[in-house]
């Protein structure tokens, strides 16, 4: 067992090294993760709170990314905010994909009325712009936390996984080995978990990256509008404050540029990983890339 894992691990590493897109994406994401893990060793994260440092300081040896008008150390804010963004995205992505995969499995496997109901719901939810619902919710919920926000976003990010998984299950259901399993008298539950599940895992993993990226995009949008979590400093919230205090026309570039760069690195990293995973799942895409 351990040996096969070892061999598989080696094969996976070789695949990653052979795929520059995946490698670059993973490196970018790992760099951001490292920023959040190692950063607190070097920078006092307490300075991410308002009124802890002098205001409007340009980058210097003491404050490498300067300070904002609220008296926060921008580097400290980035170090505290980046893991929050990742946590929010991962949480929303996991919940969204679990929800989507289960609904897709149920719809695809059982078919008939159940499929009809789930598919209609999926199609309906797909046409609703998530930002519209998010804003109504955010305007109603006074205090937002990172977890709250992740769960609300998760409730709006299960549709794509559900649709992809359903389509896959529809074709898997007719495979000879599934028919065999059914003839052998296996229960629906065992067929789903033992015969079908292993074959949709790569697809679920690919849609997980997409869902995480979408969740982060939605979350950042909410934060930039000032509707994100209020207690914890986040990247989007930093952009919101910078906008509110006209940091741009006051020339305080060190206030708004670092969060934007971190976010661009994050989205490009997720995009590269997601594109590479799509190619892995759907090898026809590989050549033209």
């Amino acid at each position, binding site marked *: 067992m351990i040996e096969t894992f070892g061999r598989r691990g080696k094969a996976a590493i070789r695949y990653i090294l052979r795929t520059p897109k995946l490698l670059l994406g993973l490196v970018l994401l790992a760099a951001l993760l490292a920023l959040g893990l190692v950063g607190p060793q070097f920078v006092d994260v307490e300075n991410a709170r308002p009124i802890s440092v002098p205001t409007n300081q340009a980058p210097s040896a003491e404050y490498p990314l300067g300070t904002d008008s609220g008296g926060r150390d921008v580097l400290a804010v980035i170090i505290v905010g980046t893991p929050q963004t990742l946590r929010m995205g991962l949480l929303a992505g996991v919940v969204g994909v679990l929800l989507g995969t289960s609904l897709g499995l149920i719809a695809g496997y059982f078919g008939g009325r159940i499929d009809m109901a789930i598919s209609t719901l999926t199609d*309906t939810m797909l046409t*609703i712009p998530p930002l519209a619902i998010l*804003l*109504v919710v*955010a305007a109603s919920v*006074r205090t937002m936390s990172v977890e709250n926000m992740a769960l609300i976003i998760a409730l709006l990010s299960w549709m794509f996984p559900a649709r992809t998984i359903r389509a896959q299950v529809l074709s898997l259901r007719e495979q000879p080995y599934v028919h065999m399993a059914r003839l052998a008298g296996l229960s629906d539950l065992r067929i789903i978990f033992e015969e079908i599940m292993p074959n949709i895992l790569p697809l679920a993993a690919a849609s997980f990256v997409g869902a995480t990226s979408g969740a982060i995009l939605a979350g950042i949008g909410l934060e*930039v509008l000032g509707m994100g979590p209020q207690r914890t400093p986040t990247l989007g919230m930093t952009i919101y404050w910078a906008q509110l205090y006209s940091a741009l026309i006051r020339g305080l570039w060190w206030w708004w540029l670092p969060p934007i760069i971190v976010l661009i690195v994050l989205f490009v990293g997720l995009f590269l990983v997601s594109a590479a995973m799509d190619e892995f799942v759907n090898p026809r895409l590989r050549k033209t890339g």
Partner: protein
Amino acid sequence: MKHAYLIRRVVMFFVVVILAATLNFIIPRLAPGDPIGAVLEELRARGASTGGDSEDEIVAAYRARFGLDKPIHIQYFSFLANTLRFDLGYSISYYPQKVEAALLRSLPWTVGLLAISTVISFAFGSFFGALMAWPRAPATVNRFVPFFMVLSAVPYYLLGLILVYIFAFVLRWLPLGGAYSSGTVPEMDLDFILDVIRHGMLPALSILLTSVGFWALGMRGVMVTVLGEDYLTLAEAKGLPDRRIFFAYAMRNALLPQVTSLAIALGTVASGSVLVEVIFNYPGVGWLLYNALRSSDYYMVQGVAFFLILTVAVSVLIVDVIYPLLDPRIER
């Protein structure tokens, strides 16, 4: 068969609209606190005089005005009926202005800016994507691919901020924001139109740069399939000029699925506008929503959110109805 398809689509449309209205009704009522309390709180903070009325009387008057004193199911049905008649209620912060009036005033700016940039991006991206798949295209085309692919992953409003900083703040070539210079009166003369175009350049550019990749990749995908078709081999065998094969045989057929995406993208123009308008102080629907959020104008927030969902639902419906006409093979 065709009728069944149409009926299904129309039913879907109404399901979406009613669902959206219902969510708008339920979500604020699930939340703790009530809007009347929030209004009173604000009045008290501003030190407004109650004019001798007790607070309970004021609350009762407000509740009656907004219909909050009736049983919940009556409230729901009258809300639904009003919403479907596009009567979205009064704005709390601009009382007695109606939400739909404010919406209609902001809409032309959003449609003008976003629809135009979406169409330009579509045209450019589709042409570029078609070239990417074309084997006899100049080799330089494919050198831009990574650039546009990476840009398509960046949220347009973040790119917008960087563009504003470079072109408006550092170089001072273009205005920082707004839709026209303050002090000018909106008129239909050449100066004003040029002014509006100058103001629209940066937001449009940020949308263009981040969305061209999406259209190009989509087009390339379809184009590759079309290029493998028999009628293309025939066209080549007949000795038709390259240009004609590219435009009339390949691109024309590959555009069909792209047009569907375009219609849907135009439908999401309003909801996509929110952040770009906030960054550029552009007086469209997104800006309206942002201000409503900041002043806790719940009816306005709900009204705009409903409107955003409605525009998407309408465009999806239009696509579904038109598609069988464009492509007779689709008839379920």
